[in-house]
């Protein structure tokens, strides 16, 4: 088992290096292979992670049920995005195209490598290092298109996210200081150690560390009011990168917050950490549901939907009922699949219409016979419609919330999620289902001259995989996965 951990942190790195030197065609194939292998390996870890307390490889790598959940989400997107990217990119055969392809595939694999490593490393310091690496690589990937907008987005992203991580670094060393009360002045910041000694940590210091961690990692997770980089970066990055940013990177930052949560509830009890998450979660949900009603840009729409879902995750964690925590973890998986699929669909639409402006996109379903309907399905999935996974996860969160003394939060949650549903489904149906308007002339050719047909079969395949995963999560999640989620929720609960 421990060899799987080692393969998972080395293989994507090796593939990244290789993709820089081999032709783009070969890089496409090995990236898909690496993503698929990573996903299969992550799945192979699930049965033992669901029953054992931890799987370790040396002192640096460790997987428990909680990290396995995030590992599955990340590697799933690694594989599907690799498939999508090979259909989405249309590179010219000149030197510039080759250079772009080399950089893109090396960057994509490095990005996935850092996100796979984050849930695998054992300790708060290494976790910070891994997340910092995700930032620097993804900032370069956001800038890769070299347009004015991409440069602006990447500057905002690298600056705001680095500031957030500066705060998170402060949280890390303050948590280290809290630990010195139990372990003496020099020790390793491993999870096993921190969790075992958390009861003896000084309460005020843990509180400070937790708030700083939520603020710092919350910046990368996209919690309001520190989410401001997110819509820009998501809309200006190449679409495969947007899918990874939204589905995997935000989740990984949430994972970091959960690790602090886990330590904090053992040290200072659950009330304070839950209150902090509730405040950030509500702020995110309010802001996102309002912005969703007034979007013009297709990818920004999906970006604000990410802020919404991150808010739901934070609110879900503020409920005491274990069923809500199970819902939150299922939501991580379902959101990865749904947001990935939605971005793949948006990529198909953007390639077809050569614009992100939703006012200029009409009749998507006529022009894109496969990815059009699947995009609508992905939007419905994001709006928590059955039979998709997010319906199940939000249902669990809400039913957990109704058992909570703070059920006002549940009521607000339901109202705001409904508002977000209006925003998302209004724009999606407008662009996809309304008949094509021949008077409009977007791009060089105009809608009238666009011909019916898919951009690429790879895009359709990647969306199909995403939707199948969503239906499985919604209708009948495998027994072993439910065991994993329950086990992880127990790890996150107050120890008895």
């Amino acid at each position, binding site marked *: 088992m421990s060899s799987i951990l080692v393969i998972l942190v080395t293989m994507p790195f090796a593939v990244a290096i290789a993709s820089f030197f081999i032709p783009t065609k070969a890089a496409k194939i090995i990236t898909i292979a690496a993503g698929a292998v990573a996903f299969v390996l992550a799945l192979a870890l699930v049965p033992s992670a669901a029953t054992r307390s931890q799987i370790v490889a040396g002192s640096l790598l460790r997987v428990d049920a909680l990290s396995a959940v995030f590992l599955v989400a990340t590697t799933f997107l690694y594989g599907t995005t690799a498939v999508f990217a090979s259909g989405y990119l249309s590179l010219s055969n000149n030197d510039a195209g080759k250079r772009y392809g080399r950089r893109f595939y090396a960057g994509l694999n490095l990005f996935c490598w850092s996100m796979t490593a984050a849930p695998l490393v054992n300790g708060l310091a290494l976790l910070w*290092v891994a997340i910092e690496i995700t930032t620097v690589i993804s900032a370069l990937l956001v800038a890769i298109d070299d347009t004015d907008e991409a440069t602006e987005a990447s*500057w*905002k992203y690298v600056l705001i996210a680095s500031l957030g991580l500066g705060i998170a670094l402060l949280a890390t*060393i303050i948590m280290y*200081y809290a630990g*010195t009360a139990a372990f003496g*002045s*020099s020790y390793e910041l491993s999870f096993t150690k921190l969790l075992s000694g958390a009861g003896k940590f000084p309460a005020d210091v843990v509180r400070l560390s937790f708030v700083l961690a939520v603020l710092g990692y919350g910046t990368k997770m996209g919690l309001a009011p520190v989410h401001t980089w997110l819509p820009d970066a998501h809309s200006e990055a190449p679409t495969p990168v947007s899918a990874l940013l939204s589905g995997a990177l935000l989740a990984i930052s949430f994972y970091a917050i959960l690790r602090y949560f886990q330590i904090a509830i053992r040290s200072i009890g659950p009330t304070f950490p839950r209150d902090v998450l509730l405040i950030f979660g509500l702020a995110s949900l309010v802001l996102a549901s309002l912005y969703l009603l007034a979007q013009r840009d297709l990818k920004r729409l999906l970006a604000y939907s990410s802020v919404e879902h991150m808010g739901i995750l934070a609110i879900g964690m503020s409920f005491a009922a274990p069923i809500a925590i199970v819902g939150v973890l299922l939501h991580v998986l379902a959101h990865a699949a749904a947001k990935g699929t939605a971005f793949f669909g948006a990529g198909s639409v953007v390639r077809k219409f050569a614009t992100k402006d939703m006012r200029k996109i009409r009749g998507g379903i006529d022009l894109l016979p496969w990815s059009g309907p699947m995009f609508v399905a992905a939007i419905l999935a994001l709006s928590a419609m059955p039979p998709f996974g997010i319906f199940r996860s939000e249902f669990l969160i809400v039913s957990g919330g109704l058992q909570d003394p703070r059920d006002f939060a549940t009521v607000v949650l339901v109202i705001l999620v409904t508002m977000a549903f209006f925003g998302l489904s209004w724009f999606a149906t407008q662009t996809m289902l309304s008949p094509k308007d021949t008077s409009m002339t977007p791009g060089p050719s105009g809608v009238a001259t666009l011909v019916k047909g898919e951009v690429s079969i790879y895009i359709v395949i990647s969306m199909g995989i995403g939707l199948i995963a969503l239906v499985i999560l919604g209708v009948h999640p495998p027994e072993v996965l439910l065991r994993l989620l329950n086990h992880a929720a127990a790890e996150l609960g107050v120890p008895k």
Partner: protein
Amino acid sequence: MPSAPSTYAGVADVATVLILLSEFAMLRAPLLRSQIRLYAFQSLVVTALAIVIASTRHIEELYVLALLSFGLKVVLVPSLVMRLLRKADLELGGSSALGVPSMILLAIGVSAIGFFSIGSLQVHSIALPTTALAISAAVVLVAFLPIIFRADVVSQAIGFFSLENGVSVASLVVAAKLPLVVEVAFLFDLLLAVVVFGLIMRLHHGRTGSLSTEELDRLKG
């Protein structure tokens, strides 16, 4: 507090205050070049502080850290940013949304908040007097001001780097014995961040022909 020799505590306090003062000086420095020099000076004080702690408290690992931080923060980062500046052929920073006097007043306000809120935590340190932690919190908060109010990429980047100096001081106070491998990992990450900052700054300069961030208003809503 351990029975620290009073000269030691004095040296430590002077050093941390110098770090905070150089942060204030950056706020009023109109020339980008002088901001970079102030950052180099600030990093030098952080390095010196690490050496003082290493020798007085016999924490040998801190020597390695001081050496790395000297090479990176005193020499490498300032010279990289200077080079960018020479290429861009620019002297003055971008316009500031707040005048120097109001910015300084605001800085005094936020540093008081940082100083008293962290100072009230009663943190006991083996390495430094606890006021150092309160001052480092003030440094972190003041570092946000140039990032928020100055409208050019160099001031914003330098603001971020000096925020990291504040965090370094905090880590000297509360985590002086943090395992060396972790400290080195932190510094390595800073190096990566600097490289990426530099790349994107160059990209920005290449596209807009300036270092100003005032044109960065295309993306909103």
